[in-house]
């Protein structure tokens, strides 16, 4: 079992949480769930409703669609981030390549948290605004 402070260390590297304060990362850590997947088990499939973000703690996860590999996520890498912000169906299937331990943040718990900690929402907006600005500057 990971401690809160270890989860905080891991969460602070996720792009979308870059602007979130450590104190609030501790609150997010409190709603995470550690889940182990056996090799070849699917974490989710294409067109499943997107309801959680995942962070790999140990092991590897392959993201693929129609037999084509999109990416492989290893330890301390997150995937399914946008599931926190919209409820569009998954566009890829996530399959564990080996025994994999992940940290899961469900959208419902996350939204409950946001309503109590408005500072997290502010940080997310800041982060999104920064991304948009850098995108705009690029074009």
């Amino acid at each position, binding site marked *: 079992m990971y401690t809160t*402070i270890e989860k905080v260390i891991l969460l602070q590297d996720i792009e979308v949480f870059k602007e979130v304060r450590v104190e609030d990362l501790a609150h997010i850590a409190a709603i995470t769930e550690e889940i182990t997947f056996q090799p070849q088990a699917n974490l989710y499939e294409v067109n499943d409703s997107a309801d959680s973000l995942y962070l790999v703690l140990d092991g590897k996860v392959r993201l693929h669609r129609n037999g084509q590999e999109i990416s492989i996520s290893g330890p301390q890498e997150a995937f399914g981030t946008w599931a926190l912000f919209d409820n569009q169906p998954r566009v890829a299937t996530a399959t564990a390549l080996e025994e994999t331990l992940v940290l899961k943040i469900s959208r419902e718990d996350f939204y409950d948290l946001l309503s109590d900690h408005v500072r997290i929402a502010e940080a997310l907006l800041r982060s999104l605004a920064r991304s948009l600005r850098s995108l705009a500057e690029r074009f």
Partner: protein
Amino acid sequence: MRQFLRKAVDIRRGEGKRIAMMAGYSFVIIASYDILKPMTRSLFVSNLGAAQLPWLYMLVALVVGIFVLFYIKFSSNVPLDRLIFWTTLFLAGNLLFFRWLLNSNINSPVLYYVLFIWASIYGVLTTTQFWLLANYLFNAREAKRLFPLLTASAILGGIMGGYFTRLLATEIGTPNLAFICIGFLGISLLLMKLAWRERDPFLETGRSTQKPAETSQSFKKVGEVFLAIRKSKHIALIMAVVGITFMVVQITEFQFITYASEKNPNTDDLTGFLGFWLSNLSIFALFFQVGFATTIIRRFGVGVTILFLPFALLLASVWVFSSYGFIAILGLKFGDRGFRHSINRVGTELLYLPIPPHLKKDTKAFIDMFVDRFARGLAGLILLISFSWIGLSVAQISLVSIGLIIVWVVISFATYREYVNSFRQAIAKRQIDPDLLAGGLNDEATINSLIISLGSRNERQIVYALDLLETVEDVDLIPPIKPLLQHSSPEVRFHTLQLMRRRAETSLLADAELLLFDEDENVQREAVRFYAEFTKDSITKSLKKWLNDENLGLRGATLFCLAQSPDLSKKLLSHELIQSFLKGGKESRRHAAGALGVIKDETYFGYLLKLLDDPETSVKIQAIKSAGKIRAKNFVPILIQSMEYRDYRKVSGQALGSYGVSIIETLASTQTDESVPIQIRTRIPRVLSLIGGQEAVDVLLEMLPQKNETLRYQIIKALNKLRTRFPELKFDKRVDQALVDELNTYFRILATLHLTKENPGENDKKFNLLERVLQERLDDHLDRIFRLLGLQYPPRDIYNAYAATTSENRSIRANAVEFLDNILSNDLKRILLPIVEELPTEQVLQKADGLIDISFSDRKKALESLIQENDPLLSASAIYEIGKNGLVEEFRPLINDALKQKNPLVQETANLVLKQSV
């Protein structure tokens, strides 16, 4: 008679006593002032001569202007009833003193100057305080209906005062008129006390201080008003019109008094003459106001209305110039007195309509208090030059008036053009507050603009136009509003019904009936209410039928409607009826909860108490809202408890806020009780900020020395809100202490951060997480430091300075430093500026050394202090970094102690670090 009066002036139930007392009050104070005016004028002119009047006008402008500033500053925090009581006694005492001086044969010119200036102050004080009280006792909608009655009784008082003067001046002598004024002041005190008793007890909170404070605030914003004048052509033109009006009026006043003094060399005769003719002219003003003013405004609009006074004065001035005599001079005063207080006043008020409310308040206060006096003073200067120095005769002075009036007319045309433009823009931007349309809308062009707005695609625009149209009289609105009953927006349907009810549009009864089955709850309620008020059938029978209708919405709307009406409640409301609703499903219970919010009968409170515990969220929310309306003490504990849960937090806070100062002590004790869940304690400062007033500030300041940072932040935030909303509130020395505490902690954290970053010889040691937490804590403290500064200095300036200090732009940061350097006290500057300047940390700490207590000097001590910190995250981060950097042995005893800590984060981290070290 009562029915006739009700019909004529629309006095509603519960308003009778209040309006009677206030009408009496306005009558006696204006009567007393209209005795004093001729009395002081005649004493001055008879003893010193009319040639001294220009000097006097300039002196009055100066002294009264300064007096008003001081009065506002010192009176803003005194409860209104006490303020009026003591001012009235003071004025009565002054009158006795002056009466004694006048009888003591002291024939010093100073006495007559002082007496005249004092009478002007008397006029400002008594009328301002009267209108403050009227604004306190009547809400905006009541004011709209009832203030014309108060104005009429004031005019009647003026007439009566003038005739008293005429009758008694020669009988008892001018100085003895002071006794009549004292008598009137005594009656005014009695009436004020009686009116005060009739106030709504629920409106007690802060209102007595709010109204004068609003005015006081206005003067702090003189700069903003100047800025508004520069930006808005419309405001600048209004100012010019008002200024020139007072200049001309002052000149005509001079001409009238000078003529009167020539014809009446005896003081008592002059007093009687002035009193008699001022009364006669007031009768004309009243007659004109009641008989023609509305029709003229309605028919010709604002444009013609504002030209009445200048044209009347122009004609009279030409007459005075060409054939100087009694009739011509009377014609001049006739123009001034007859039109200025009636049609011209209404026209000028209408010119303010398109100005946004926040700006209007400040601009109006500025114009009423300063432009008026400045213009009169300027008129004094013009008279001094033309009459005393150049030697123009009274008749020739009319030439000056004629010149000024021509400018006045030209400016009036420009103002009207600008008014129409501004009004169109204001309607589009919804800047006009319908509640402030006390005079009503009568201008045809304006009404047409509003009717056109009813066809807008924007539903908010329609709702806004409907609200404004409520003040329109004698216009058939049925054709434009009837189709709106079928509008797709429930909001529009609701406001249309509301307008129909307020205008008593009974011919639309059948159309309203269709809306009884509307899908929107508020529309149904309003439809039932409209039907109940205007149907000719037996309403009891209809309501009984609807209470059993299969449409639950109609049943609920009917219950709400009869609960709201005292007459219908008596006939139909019963415990059985409420119980039948409570036995139903959640919708039925929600309807009951809504209706219970308008039943003031205590025997029904128990049902609401039960519904406050309802398992259904929607029912409980409605019950909380209703509890906020009823404001019974026994709901308070459950409302406080409800703040623990997210769904009810906001609505419970608002409900508690509506209780006002009566629950401040309960809130304070709940906030300091550590056994109360933190979710509740953090919401209490916000509730206190909703309540407002000095009591709320004092309680919040008392709570300020708070260890819990979240709570402290919420307390400071609530104080900031109060400071912004009520700038007149006092924030005492406890803010300084809080500021010192915050700065102390800031420098301690900064020193710790510096020690963890800078480790000569130990560069391999990294404390990333700890550094980040420390930096975040520094940001929090800086935020709180600026928030506390915002309690002592203008909040907006401090906020801008704070935003600038955190800017990435160097020159913006430099400007902020410069600004702070200019406004902060020297002590504060020495401590704070190094933080916001871009100085190296060592220098910042060096500058703080000696001023602030920083008790440790090496990294080990700093880390030890952090482990023992009362901040779990800082403590856990320090322990984690110690473990990560292999320093466990150095700190083992403290980490072992941390294992025993109650906070799971600290305990868990200490455990992890100790395990990893093994």
